[in-house]
């Protein structure tokens, strides 16, 4: 029996060795792949001493706000699927490291108050990217294999694709803005489906929590004398015509009351007629031309009022 045990231990270790080497190599390789989270963090930390305007929000802001056209030094700290929880965490993490910060733009979408990643939604994997790359842990995050293994986070299937076809690249400027050229077709049908998806992601039970996150951000900014402004980005008519007006009205009331309490500005560009079909990549995201136009409008109309004077 001792011979058998020795045999299985030796053979077991020899057998496992190549697998361990493979898994470790994959982990090392995957950690080198740039993501919007890792690249954005590097750019932010290189420039935080100079940032005057910070933009937070979801994909609407990530693709739609190009700080190069602010007229001030800006940084886009928004990201795809970013929730108010992560807006709050990132704001609290960095605003004190930005000595020149004058104001913060917080993007508020149709679904902002009702939406949460929470680990169990289709976009729940993003929680693990925030955990790995920003060091921010969502309170309900399940510490499963994705919390320590990048192979499981990307999924082995996707990793195999990267090995053969190369890893995806990140297209992001040093301001944190990412250009978005083309998305879904701009049509009534596509817009209707998009709004339906957003409606499905809105959960009433998330409202209270998300409002408290926004209050925390506004309160922190007010304490520091930093201007704040809540902005709703332009969308195309194929999208906004399907929005539930009761939801919009409720959210507008919440935002109005918050801005009364915290002294923030409120600008709603959802139905702004200055934006035509040529400005949109899809039904609710601006393309680079649209982002340039919108950012210039922000720089001319919003920031002078919102940002604290020197």
């Amino acid at each position, binding site marked *: *029996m001792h011979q*058998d*045990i020795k*045999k*299985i231990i030796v053979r077991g270790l020899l*057998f496992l060795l*190549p*697998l361990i080497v493979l898994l470790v190599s994959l982990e090392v390789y995957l950690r080198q792949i740039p993501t919007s989270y890792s690249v954005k963090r590097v750019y932010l930390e290189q420039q935080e001493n100079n940032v005057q305007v910070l933009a937070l929000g979801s994909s609407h802001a990530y693709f739609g706000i190009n700080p190069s056209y602010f007229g001030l030094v800006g940084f886009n700290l928004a990201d795809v699927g970013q929730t108010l929880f992560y807006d709050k965490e990132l704001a609290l993490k960095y605003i004190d490291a930005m000595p020149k910060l004058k104001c913060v733009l917080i993007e508020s979408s149709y679904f902002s108050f009702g939406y949460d990643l929470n680990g169990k939604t289709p976009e729940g994997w993003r929680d693990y990217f925030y955990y790995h790359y920003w060091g921010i842990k969502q309170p309900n995050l399940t510490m*499963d*294999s994705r919390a320590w293994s990048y192979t*499981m986070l990307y*999924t*082995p*299937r996707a*990793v*195999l694709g990267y090995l053969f076809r190369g890893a995806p690249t990140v297209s992001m400027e040093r301001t944190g803005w990412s250009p978005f050229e083309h998305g879904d077709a701009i049509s009534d049908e596509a817009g209707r489906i998009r709004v339906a998806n957003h409606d499905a992601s809105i959960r009433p039970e998330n409202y209270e929590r998300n409002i408290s996150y926004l209050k925390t951000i506004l309160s922190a900014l007010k304490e520091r004398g930093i201007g704040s402004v809540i902005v709703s980005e332009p969308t195309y008519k194929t999208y906004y015509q399907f929005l539930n007006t009761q939801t919009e009205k409720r959210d507008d009331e919440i935002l109005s009351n918050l801005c009364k309490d915290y002294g923030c500005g409120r600008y709603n560009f959802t139905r702004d007629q200055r934006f035509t079909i040529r400005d949109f990549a899809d039904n609710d995201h601006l393309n680079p031309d649209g982002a340039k136009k919108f950012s210039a409008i922000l720089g001319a109309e919003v920031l002078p009022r919102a940002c604290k004077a020197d």
Partner: protein
Amino acid sequence: MLFNSFHFLIFFPVVTILYFVLPHRFRWFLLLLASVYFYMAFVPVYILILAFTIVIDYIAGIYIEKSQGKKRKVLLVISLISNIGVLAFFKYFNFINLNITEVLHALGTSNPIPFLSILLPIGLSFHTFQAMSYTIEVYRGKQPAERNFGIYALYVMFYPQLVAGPIERPQNLIHQFYEEHSFDYERVASGLRLMLWGLFKKAVIADRLAAVADKVFNNTHQFAGPGLVIGIVFFAFQIFCDFSGYSDMAIGAARVMGFRLMKNFDRPYSAKSISELWSRWHISLSTWFRDYLYISLGGSRVSIPRWYFNLFFVFLVSGLWHGANWTFVLWGALHGFYLVFGLLTKDIRAYFTRISGLFKLPGLQNALRILIVFSLTSFAWIFFRANSFADAMYVVSHLFAGWGSVVSVSGISNLLASLNVNREALIIAFLSVLILEVVQYLNAKKDGLSARIAALPIGLRWGLYYCAILAILFFGVFESRQFIYFQF
């Protein structure tokens, strides 16, 4: 704790190493503790339910053996009622209540009994049947009552087969806990090979096919004949690979430690008749029903009408065992009907085989029979998998609709797009089913595939293992998909 989880990846080697390190007299205790931990990884408080039935059956077994005459039967009935009672409460309360509600509603009144929010204890149907098997065998005098409470508890809770079988018999399992199992390299390697194969079937084949089957069955009205047939066939292989994969992992894990569990699947889709199918599919359950229900009803030693009733009734109950829904009962009824119809038409079918000359082409005859049995089985799976009776009837009524749409390349492309399947995923699915059939075919040969692999040079052998592991890693689905039979 799922077999295809990192938790089990740590749990299994730790328990196995400790098992072989400990002196024999302590091993049963280690296994019992490990089994308790394994079970409590699901819903800890449900261990109390298991403890309740274990205590009842342990005591019942001892007193049945000691008693004489009518008292023995009373004790058996108490044991069976307590087991069935727990099963009925947790599994069937809301189903029964729903039916009462519908009847009362039809009579113009309402049901005052509230529905319960009960989570079904994992593996309840399996360990309940295993426990019932013990008291019945003690009653029949075929199994001595187990005096060691810990050993009896381990018989019910033995972790490899606790939550989804195979449903063991006390004559096969209990004595093994008393036997000293020495470490044997070949046996351990064989057990690990079987576990690897089981995991391949689950992660690479079953869970991959599930994505398509779920798409179809969760959205039946979006599909016509071609999509529905693909969904049904994919589900047929999904449920086989899922369940037999689990059984393989259970049998393999037990084998590593020196325990022999019964075979639960034997190439069921190569069956040439429905009765042969049931000698190859979920063997531990079908033999349980044969030995404890069918034979108790008289089996085939009764009048022909009664015999047919016995067969049909057993399959009705089997359907109900699988789930608290009329669709499962209908599934069981269909198989009961198939069996009875097969018996009724046996002579006619033999006659047509003779006059058609098909008997001269045994290969073709067997192929046709296999195809027919597979088609009948797949048809029955519609009711097993459908979310509701209405969905099942939609599938049945649209099986032959829309076939004209797939005669063109664009039609096939549209069908694949509607199934959320790209060409690559389809190729992987077909290749993995092909691998499955080849492995099963080779395994059915005299020496068995496992023995042939063991005889290969180490380089080739390890190459095969690496291929299986890499296939599981890169082509497996890891979305915490539970084994299908866990819900029973």
